[in-house]
């Protein structure tokens, strides 16, 4: 270093940018510190999640939802009754256990307990067929949540595949595919759902002991209907996203090095419309739950004796004056679930899409 002199080394070229190393200063400790990485590098997803957990409403909703999920998983293991079982003591049917109020025992049960027997309390009372109402509400919640979740997943998968193909292909293919979407979109959804449910209930049949048979043909037809109708909204959304993302330079770069379309969609385009996908899926779940409870209410939902929140609310209408709590429990459950899912969806939107934040 010391015997290096700029004036002695000949310039290779007249205009060369050859630098004089001796004119450089060493970086001080303070300056070196500035280069330190202060916080961990974050990804888009982590960043969004961090924002989400700063939103108190969303956090409360997540806690409420987790509590509900915890209860519906654990409760059937603790409560000794099943959703279709009419109450009985020592193998004898307890005919007095009809329409009990919450935490009330029937006469036979009281006599049984005086003799030293133990009886699990009926937390929500019993229904008109002597069934424990708490466990029925729990199973109803299970059914409603499962429907919401699966329906949204079906919608997500179909919509994503269809939308990304249409958006990526563009041109005539896009035009044709979107025409189909337009037509399906203009079908009145509720009417078609009802129609399909009526028909599929009569047409479909399963082996009597399979899981599908237990859920009921109505339930299966509900999934089919969701799969056939509701994906169009998702497909439109994803197509619009892809159309704008497609114009970016990194897509051009990927194309120019010969990346295959499938890989471009998976690796470059879909991660970039992740926020839109997450938000609309989160908001799809409560709307699916709504639709299911609506259909159950008009008698097209799950098959009896399997309860759903909508069918429970419907059957509660008959003894409404005397037993209003039978409507209140399932209704409250629907409201709680839908409210917390809506709030989580709103929170996700604010967290992942800062442009939309108000």
């Amino acid at each position, binding site marked *: 270093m010391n015997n290096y002199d700029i004036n002695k080394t000949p310039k290779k070229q007249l205009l060369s940018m050859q630098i004089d190393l001796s004119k450089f200063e060493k970086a001080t400790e303070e300056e070196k510190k500035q280069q330190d990485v202060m916080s961990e590098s974050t990804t888009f997803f982590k960043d969004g999640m961090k924002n989400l957990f700063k939103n108190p409403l969303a956090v409360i909703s997540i806690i409420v939802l987790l509590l509900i999920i915890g209860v519906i998983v654990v409760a059937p293991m603790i409560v000794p009754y099943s959703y279709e079982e009419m109450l009985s003591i020592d193998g004898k049917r307890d005919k007095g256990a009809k329409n009990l109020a919450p935490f009330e025992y029937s006469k036979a049960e009281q006599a049984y307990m005086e003799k030293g027997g133990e009886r699990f309390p009926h937390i929500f009372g019993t229904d008109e067929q002597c069934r424990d109402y708490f466990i029925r509400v729990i199973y109803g919640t299970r059914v409603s949540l499962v429907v919401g979740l699966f329906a949204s997943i079906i919608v997500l998968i179909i919509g994503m595949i269809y939308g990304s193909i249409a958006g990526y292909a563009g041109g005539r293919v896009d035009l044709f595919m979107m025409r189909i979407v337009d037509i399906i979109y203009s079908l*009145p959804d509720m009417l078609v759902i009802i129609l399909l449910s*009526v*028909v599929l209930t009569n047409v479909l049949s399963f082996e009597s002991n399979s899981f599908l048979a237990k859920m009921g043909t109505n339930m299966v037809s509900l999934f089919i209907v969701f799969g056939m109708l509701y994906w169009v909204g998702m497909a439109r959304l994803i197509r619009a996203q892809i159309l704008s993302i497609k114009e970016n330079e990194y897509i051009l770069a990927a194309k120019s090095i010969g990346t295959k379309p499938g890989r471009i969609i998976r690796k470059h385009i879909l991660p970039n419309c992740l926020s839109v996908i997450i938000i609309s899926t989160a908001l799809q779940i409560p709307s699916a739950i709504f639709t299911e*409870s609506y259909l159950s209410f*008009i008698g097209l939902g799950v098959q009896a004796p399997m309860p759903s929140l909508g069918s429970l609310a419907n059957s509660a209408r008959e003894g*409404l004056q005397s037993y209003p709590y039978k409507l209140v429990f399932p209704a409250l459950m629907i409201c709680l679930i839908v409210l917390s899912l809506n709030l989580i969806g709103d929170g996700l939107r604010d967290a992942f899409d800062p442009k939309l934040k108000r």
Partner: protein
Amino acid sequence: MARYIIKRLLLAILTVFLICFITFFLMNAIPGGPFNKEKALSEATVQALNERYNLDKPLFTQFALYMKGLFQGDLGVSLKNGRDISEIIGESFPISARLGLTAVIIALISGTIFGSIAALMRNKLPDRIIIFLSTLFTAVPSFVLATLLLLVFSIQLGWVPVWSATETNYVLPVIALAAYPMAYTTRLAKTSMLDALSQDYIRTAKAKGVSKWKIIFKHALRNSLLPVITYAGPEIAYIITGSMVVETVFTVGGIGSKFVSAITNRDYTMIMATTIFLATLMVLANVVCDLLYKVVDPRIKYD
């Protein structure tokens, strides 16, 4: 413009035809004919009935005959009570229309007002109350609200009479129907109002010294109405036709409750006719709304 209208109308006609097609063939896929009753009819009777209702002809001929009937306003005959379906719809639809229109108008107007108030008083107490209530009401299914209203105000308190043949009180059904669209419109109006208020032309108007109320009514509100109008079209169609649950709860004899009872009674011709009627109405409402939307906002291009 003319091209757009024609295109839109063609799409609508195609959709309506598709609905008729789907409905007809789905209904025919159900096993068992309409005359399979518990009491077996004699073979000659069945044959006569089949001939009378064209059930002995091939399916496509039946479809063509059905479509021909539709064009002449003949929706067929109810399987359960043998009445003319066009007659049933003619009786019940006006009730539903009146109920639905009242609910929609109340929902849209009050929703816009509340949404605008929330936007103008952003982060203050009124805004928080309005947004809290509207979030709450978007989570309450209409049948829950309807049943609770009926229980509290009609049965427990006895303020509002229960719906019967002589007593037609629209208050409770309208509230039950209007709650969800009102809550939704409020949220929509708030967002678009905030959006409009942050625009450059509002700042210009303020800089020019235009009064606050004039800015709100003349510049902000007008521009914030567009999303509400987009939502209004389908919602009007949906509420007029889709108030099945509320009508059933309040035992209003509208087309919605007729549809529900047709479903429970498995009255297939009635289901088919009602579906086609309601669907056509909804598709038409959507077309009108689309065209109106383009008239209201000249910035939108016709594609």
